[in-house]
């Protein structure tokens, strides 16, 4: 698949995203016009720093300048993309309750398919005096033999499981977050970044697949730079996540789609 044109399509989508960002987004306009960028070069002779990529910290600090001139949302959604990476990492059955337990994700994901129900649960609330309503719903779903998938950092998922009755705890499917610089051997996991959201997950092959229709990655001198291909605002193009992670993007030998090797 990779060799039969997916790479060309993927790259074409990225070039469209770069062109659009250069034409409409203030931060990229001034950064790439006055400093430069690579791959593609937009102003001949100017190649910029780190190929024109910016750090996630800078993107957050200057997020108002990542809104296109026509306007749009000015805050990143850390739950973005969950609905698209779930089938890749741990395909949920219809009716599954997806519980996002991450203090950094205050709002439930908006892109889950209609067959799934999502909610957020702050792990800090599990140790407080008041029992959160979402926890009761998790217990109820498990008692009715429903499926529950817990998504979040390891410690947050552990806190959720610890708050459940002992006979139900083992029935929770776990999908731990992994930062791009902390990718492990799985067998389950999602690549998550607090600014860009969900970027991919471990596929059946045990490799870290990118959500390639929506996420592009390329190597720069600053590390892997990631781009959200379909997010209109804030526009996140060539973001160095986790402080800049050395790695490469290669085709999966089994699926032919891009995987991250760090």
């Amino acid at each position, binding site marked *: 698949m990779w060799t039969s044109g997916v790479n060309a399509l993927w790259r074409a989508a990225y070039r469209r995203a770069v062109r659009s960002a250069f*034409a409409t987004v*203030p931060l990229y*306009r001034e950064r790439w*016009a006055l400093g430069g960028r690579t791959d593609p070069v*937009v102003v001949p002779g100017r190649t910029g720093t780190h190929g024109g990529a910016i750090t996630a910290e800078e993107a957050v600090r*200057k997020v108002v*300048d990542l809104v296109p*001139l026509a*306007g749009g949302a000015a805050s990143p959604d850390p739950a973005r993309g969950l609905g698209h990476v779930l089938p890749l990492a741990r395909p949920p059955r219809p009716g599954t309750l997806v519980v996002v337990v991450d203090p950094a994700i205050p709002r439930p994901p908006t892109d889950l398919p209609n067959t799934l129900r999502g909610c957020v649960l702050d792990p800090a609330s599990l140790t407080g005096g008041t029992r959160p309503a979402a926890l009761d719903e998790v217990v109820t779903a498990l008692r009715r033999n429903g499926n529950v998938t817990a998504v979040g950092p390891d410690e947050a998922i552990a806190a959720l499981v610890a708050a459940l009755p002992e006979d139900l705890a083992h029935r929770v499917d776990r999908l731990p977050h992994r930062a791009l610089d902390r990718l492990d051997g799985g067998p389950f996991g999602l690549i998550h970044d607090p600014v860009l959201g969900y970027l991919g997950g471990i596929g059946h092959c045990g490799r870290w697949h990118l959500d390639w229709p929506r996420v592009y990655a390329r190597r720069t001198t600053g590390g892997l730079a990631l781009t959200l291909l379909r997010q209109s605002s804030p526009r996140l193009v060539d973001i160095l996540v986790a402080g800049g992670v050395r790695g490469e993007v290669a085709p999966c030998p089994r699926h032919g789609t891009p995987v991250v090797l760090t």
Partner: protein
Amino acid sequence: MTLSVSIVDPRVDAEPSGWADFRRRANLHPVWDYPLLRAEAWTARNPPVLAVLRDRTRVVAALSVMVCRTWREQRFAPPPRERTRRLRPRWAEVYLPLLSGCPAAVFHESLDVAARRDGLRLFERELARHLGPGLLGVVYRAMTDDLVAVLDGPGRISRRIDPTAVLRNRWTRFADWQDTLSPALRRRMAEIAADDTVEVSTATGRTDLDAHELAVLLNAHRARQDQRAWQEGQRSRLAGLHLDTRSPVSAAYLDLLVRRPDVTTRVYRDRAGRLLALNTMLDNPVSPALGHWADLPVGAGGRPGLYLDCYAHCVRQVIERGRPELTAGRTLLDSKAALGFGRRELSTVAVPRPVMGR
């Protein structure tokens, strides 16, 4: 006198020879600095080009010309020479969007009225050739009366727009200017100066500022100001349309501006370090200008009346340096009148394509 015109695109063309010398001879404001024009052009929806008028090899006049494709489209201008767009309808505006009270056509004092008239006609012919058949005409915005006199002619349309505020310096001491203010205004200024919850820093050539922070405050302020001007019926509106060809001020531009030795930047912060207001003053031997002013609205934590302190500071500099006048933009003229500012009438002259160069 042998006049010639060349038009350069600051985005890609090198600085014209003799440009720095002309800027100095003609006492131009820092906004005419070529690297600043380049930064402005790259980050504009309707980027400026620079027209340079020469007498043989010596630069004797210049015009900053916005090449306008749109007032509605929310996109930056396409990169130059990306492909030929000469047939696309466009118009040109001789205008300094970041110093709107000053004309964007400047002449060396050695040029008499006839030479200026000839030079402008020559410029129009060269502009038509440069931009191609898609050019609809040229609009000279914010022109002073002496320029209107040389621009006027058959088929050219002229109308008054909002005037700009000008303070003539007739004092030798700052205290003398303060004595002309009303007691209430003096009291208010003293209160602001004594407010120890606001920290003020003022310097030229600043490298300690975060230009992005300045740009965010400035663009939010400009958006509020534009909305108010529109609601109050600004005189530059035409046929009920928002004909705004300007672009947001970029952080890159401000970064270059505040680093200049002839730009004084004054910022106000609260005790937590939050930026409350900013001001840039563009120094000039003939006519310093109060460049940018922006503040937080009171509802968002801003402090009322900081602009009074800013104006007092600028007036103090003008008096202490012995400058002849201070210009301060085209808004809030009544408030500025209370500080002693008068008005300089400005006009816009529209020149349709058929009469360009005639």
